[in-house]
């Protein structure tokens, strides 16, 4: 309750202090400052800003230096609210309020929802259910979701880490197995190396035995070489020249013999030739003699034939002889003869030939046939002799025969042929003699050669013997053999030196006999040590050594692998050591974190969805507040009980004039504007009082500026009584301004404890 109002420089009131009571009557006639007092009270309560309309009006009216202070300081009320609800003035006693203003909405909210604004609630829940990312709850939800995601990721990471540890453990087991395998390899390798070592040692001893035996063999060889060298001592001096000269003599004798033998053979050949020649000459001589005889015979026969023209007995022989001659001379000669015969004396020749044939074949005389056969045989033999020695005789024969044949036709021819044959016979005898002389001479030459050859042969035998004796003296069979011995002797001498030098090297400069003894001693020691007599050969031993070298190399490599494996295993073991127990704890911790975050997200999502439901509910709560209006109506009715005639009821449909209706006795409804001015003013006053009280649950302040002017005296009294009831019941402070002296007097009667202020006293 305002107890004191102090005004400075406020219009008429330069310096004025007003004391206020529960009900204060402010009396002032026109121009006494009643409006100024109202404005001052308005400023003290609302304290309007100078930028607002009412502030500007006050400034224009009373200047910037005005001051109005209410004590105790009241809760500020907006100027619209004050002017519409708490200030009731003569001029505006109507309920029509400024529509759509903020304060009216507030008023309605207060009237209908007890000061709570459903739209504000709806707005709040709209916000809380919104997905807008600028809002705190959305950010918090996102943060919670992010936390959940993070926790899930962490949990997943832990699980994977755990699985990885398990996998690594498996790998460790595999590595362990591999390591054991490698160690097995190493052990096997080491055993093999030891075995190889002992085998090689044994083989090396055997090799030593082999070597020493080899030395001994070389010593033996050397000694044998010495013996051989002694045997070959006669050959040390090379006398091959001497042997060669001996040889040459033999060869030379041989060559002379050979030459002489050649001569002898030639001579022999010549003799044989001469003999053949001699025999040929003799045969030719004999043949010529036969021919000569034959020619003589033939000539005699021919003579006889020609003389007698009657050949006797001899014709077949002759004919056969002629034929044989022809046959002997050959086909050509016979043909030639036949042709010659035919040409020279065709008739005689044909006759001769046919006669010879016929006579010959028809000869009845056996003697004749025998003579003919014998003659033929003889001719045959002569032919053979002639045919055998050669061409000369044959030519002679042929010549003779030819001549005979040619000249056969004539006896002269036969004679001529007979002479020719006789000459030839003499010539042949002469040539035979010459040949016999030459043969004799040749045979004499051969005798001389044979004598020379005998001398030469003897000389050769002497030379050969000398050579043989020389070789026998050296015990060799031939010059080659001697040369071989000489060469061997040189070889042996050379080898002997080399071997000795080598052996001396092997013996280390010591005496070779001592060396031999030492070798025997060493071999004996090997025997005593049980070293086998025979082992593998040097190549096999070398292979063993190679194998050992490779073995050691392999061992080195496998050893490196083993060291690597141990390091790997240690690494793996270090990684997983202690991980199992720890990871389980971490996983459970993250499981918890996930559950917490899920709970938080679920809570926030629940809140969001609950906010959506609440939004729906608050949106459904509208302004149709029948109950509130009914309450207001009832309150107005109660206040107007003394003013309205009995049986009238008030009905409030809204807060506009036309929405306030009064039911009259007859049951008809009349709206506010259909009522008399006085009744209407009383109704509005009652409505405002009811609304003011609803609007402000606690006691407030009412400023009334002559609200009763339109009422008659009775209504005025009743309205004032209604005001008094309101003041008494709800404790509101009332400031009543009036310019009416009777009303001021009446008020003093109606309000007990009223304080009266006469403005005139302050001006």
């Amino acid at each position: 309750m305002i107890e004191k109002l102090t005004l400075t420089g406020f219009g008429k009131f330069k310096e004025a202090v007003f004391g206020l009571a529960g009900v204060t009557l402010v009396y002032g006639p026109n121009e006494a400052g009643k409006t100024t007092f109202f404005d001052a009270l308005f400023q003290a309560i609302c304290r309007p800003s100078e930028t607002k309309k009412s502030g500007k009006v006050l400034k224009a009216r009373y200047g910037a230096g005005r001051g109005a202070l209410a004590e105790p300081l009241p809760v500020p009320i907006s100027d619209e609210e004050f002017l519409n609800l708490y200030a009731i003035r003569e001029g505006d006693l109507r309920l029509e309020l400024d529509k759509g203003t903020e304060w009216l909405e507030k008023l309605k909210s207060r009237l209908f929802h007890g000061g709570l604004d459903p739209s504000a609630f709806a707005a709040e829940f709209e916000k809380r259910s919104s997905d807008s990312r600028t809002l705190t709850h959305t950010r918090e939800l996102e943060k919670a979701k992010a936390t959940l995601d993070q926790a899930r990721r962490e949990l997943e990471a832990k699980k994977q880490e755990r699985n990885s540890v398990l996998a690594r453990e498996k790998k460790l087991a595999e590595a362990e197995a591999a390591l054991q395998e490698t160690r097995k390899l190493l052990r096997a390798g080491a055993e093999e190396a030891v075995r190889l070592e002992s085998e090689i040692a044994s083989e090396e001893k055997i090799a030593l035995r082999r070597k020493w035996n080899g030395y001994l063999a070389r010593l033996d060889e050397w000694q044998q070489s010495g013996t051989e060298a002694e045997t070959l001592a006669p050959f040390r001096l090379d006398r091959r020249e001497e042997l060669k000269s001996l040889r040459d003599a033999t060869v030379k004798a041989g060559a002379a013999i050979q030459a002489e033998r050649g001569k002898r053979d030639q001579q022999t050949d010549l003799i044989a030739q001469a003999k053949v020649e001699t025999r040929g000459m003799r045969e030719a001589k004999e043949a010529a003699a036969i021919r000569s005889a034959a020619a003589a015979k033939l000539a005699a026969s021919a003579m006889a034939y020609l003389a007698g023209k009657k050949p006797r007995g001899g014709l077949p022989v002759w004919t056969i002889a002629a034929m044989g001659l022809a046959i002997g001379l050959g086909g050509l000669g016979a043909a030639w003869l036949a042709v010659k015969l035919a040409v020279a004396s065709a008739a005689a020749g044909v006759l001769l030939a046919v006669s010879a044939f016929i006579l010959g074949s028809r000869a009845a005389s056996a003697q004749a046939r025998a003579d003919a056969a014998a003659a033929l045989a003889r001719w045959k033999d002569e032919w053979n002799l002639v045919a055998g020695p050669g061409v000369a005789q044959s030519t002679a024969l042929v010549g003779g025969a030819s001549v005979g044949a040619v000249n056969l036709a004539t006896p002269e021819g036969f004679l001529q042929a007979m002479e020719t044959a006789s000459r030839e016979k003499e010539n042949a005898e002469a040539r035979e003699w010459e040949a016999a002389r030459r043969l004799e001479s040749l045979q004499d030459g051969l005798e001389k050669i044979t004598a020379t050859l005998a001398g030469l042969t003897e000389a050769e035998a002497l030379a050969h013997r000398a050579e043989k004796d020389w070789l026998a003296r050296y015990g060799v069979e031939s010059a080659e053999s001697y040369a071989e011995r000489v060469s061997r002797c040189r070889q042996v001498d050379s080898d002997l030196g080399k071997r000795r030098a080598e052996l001396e090297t092997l013996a280390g400069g010591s005496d070779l006999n001592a060396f031999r003894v030492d070798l025997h001693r060493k071999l004996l020691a090997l025997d005593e040590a049980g070293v086998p007599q025979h082992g593998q050969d040097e190549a096999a031993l070398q292979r063993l050594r190679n194998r050992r070298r490779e073995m050691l190399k392999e061992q080195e490599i496998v050893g490196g692998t083993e060291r690597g494996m141990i390091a790997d295993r240690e690494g793996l073991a270090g990684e997983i050591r202690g991980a199992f127990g720890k990871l389980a704890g971490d996983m459970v911790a993250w499981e918890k974190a996930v559950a917490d975050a899920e709970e938080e997200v679920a809570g926030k999502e629940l809140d969001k969805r609950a906010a959506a439901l609440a939004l729906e509910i608050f949106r459904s709560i509208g302004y149709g507040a029948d109950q509130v209006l009914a309450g207001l109506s009832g309150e107005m009715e109660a206040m107007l009980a003394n003013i309205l005639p009995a049986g009238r009821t008030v009905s409030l449909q809204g807060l506009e004039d036309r929405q306030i209706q009064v039911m009259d006795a007859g049951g008809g409804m009349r709206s506010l504007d259909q009522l008399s001015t006085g009744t209407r003013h009383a109704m509005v006053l009652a409505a405002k009082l009811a609304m003011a009280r609803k609007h402000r649950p606690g006691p407030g302040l009412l400023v009334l500026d002559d609200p009763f002017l339109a009422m008659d005296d009775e209504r005025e009294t009743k309205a004032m009584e209604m005001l008094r009831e309101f003041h008494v019941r709800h404790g509101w402070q009332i400031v009543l301004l009036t310019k009416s002296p009777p009303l001021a007097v009446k008020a003093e009667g109606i309000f007990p404890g009223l304080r009266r202020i006469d403005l005139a006293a302050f001006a």
Partner: protein
Amino acid sequence: MPRILHAADLHLSDAEKDHGLAVFAELIETALRERVDYVVFCGDLFNTFADAEKLRADFRRMLGAPPFEFLYLPGNHEELQRGGGDLTRLDFGAATVLHTRPWELLRRDRGGVAVEFLAIPHQEQYQGYADWPVPAKAAPWRIALAHGVVAGMAYRGPDDEGGATAIDADLFTRFRADYAALGHIHGRRSQRIGGAIFSYPGSTRVWRRNETGPRGALLLELPSASAGTDTGLPEPRFIPFASAGEYRKYILPLTLEGEPADLEAQSKAWGAADYIEVAFTGVVEDERSAAASADRLRARYAARVRALDIDRTGVSALPGIASQPMVRQFLEAWEARAPRPGENGCVDVSAQAIWIRARELSLNLFKANLERLA
């Protein structure tokens, strides 16, 4: 065919002696009725070491000389309030106490089939388990007993039981367990990991809040067939214990006048051993009305159950709220939007939660606005 009854987390305590021992009695009865060859108890048999000291005589007496072998694996709770005490010195009668750390291997052949028990009592940490020289499996079946949290088994359920270290599932598969008999997590769950079954039977009795659902033990039947196949081992069967009780929680929105929704229908299902928790929510005109409602509820139901907790922390008071017209309007509109049961006759749980939360959020906003106005 050996039969094994698997239980854990009975949490016998002097403070709740009767209830605990009643459940223990049912455990024994069940073992006898089901003619089991073994009972494997996987930790937290006693709530604390002190409780073990106090109740071991009762335990011995009740266990007697049973026809089955009772294998008792200590959990983390047996370590609590231990002082200088030593569990190995306590006499648990016929029970075989498996306290050798980090592990011990037993071989038994009850039921005609050899079974190995790999006992892993609760320990500070299991680091280095990979190096444990556990012998190779030499029986058709190997059952591993452990008390702790196996990583990967959805640890956070309705119960958040701390105090034990995490165990990697690999520990069990590594040592060829066919069945991991686990304890410590009070919510029952079973899972196949790498061919083995990992099971938590859950707490044997309702030990504390939020242990929802029936409580009991798991019955495992081991086929005589040799192990090694994934399908060789059937899922264990759950046997609920009537004496164990159930934990039931109700969230009751209060009217502005402090009146809770009716619980009568739900209370029909309550058992004498149940643990009932009622949580009031909402904004009330007068706080005393909520307290009075709680008193009335308690008077009516407390004697019918083992425990009845009424939580009023979710209730806030605001004088004058009942006379606020918009609050009334809101509550009417909110009631009208109550989720209806679907075709299956059930109310969508998430819709229900959203609906209740919408009321809570709205009333809180009312409260904040009205406090600002006052």
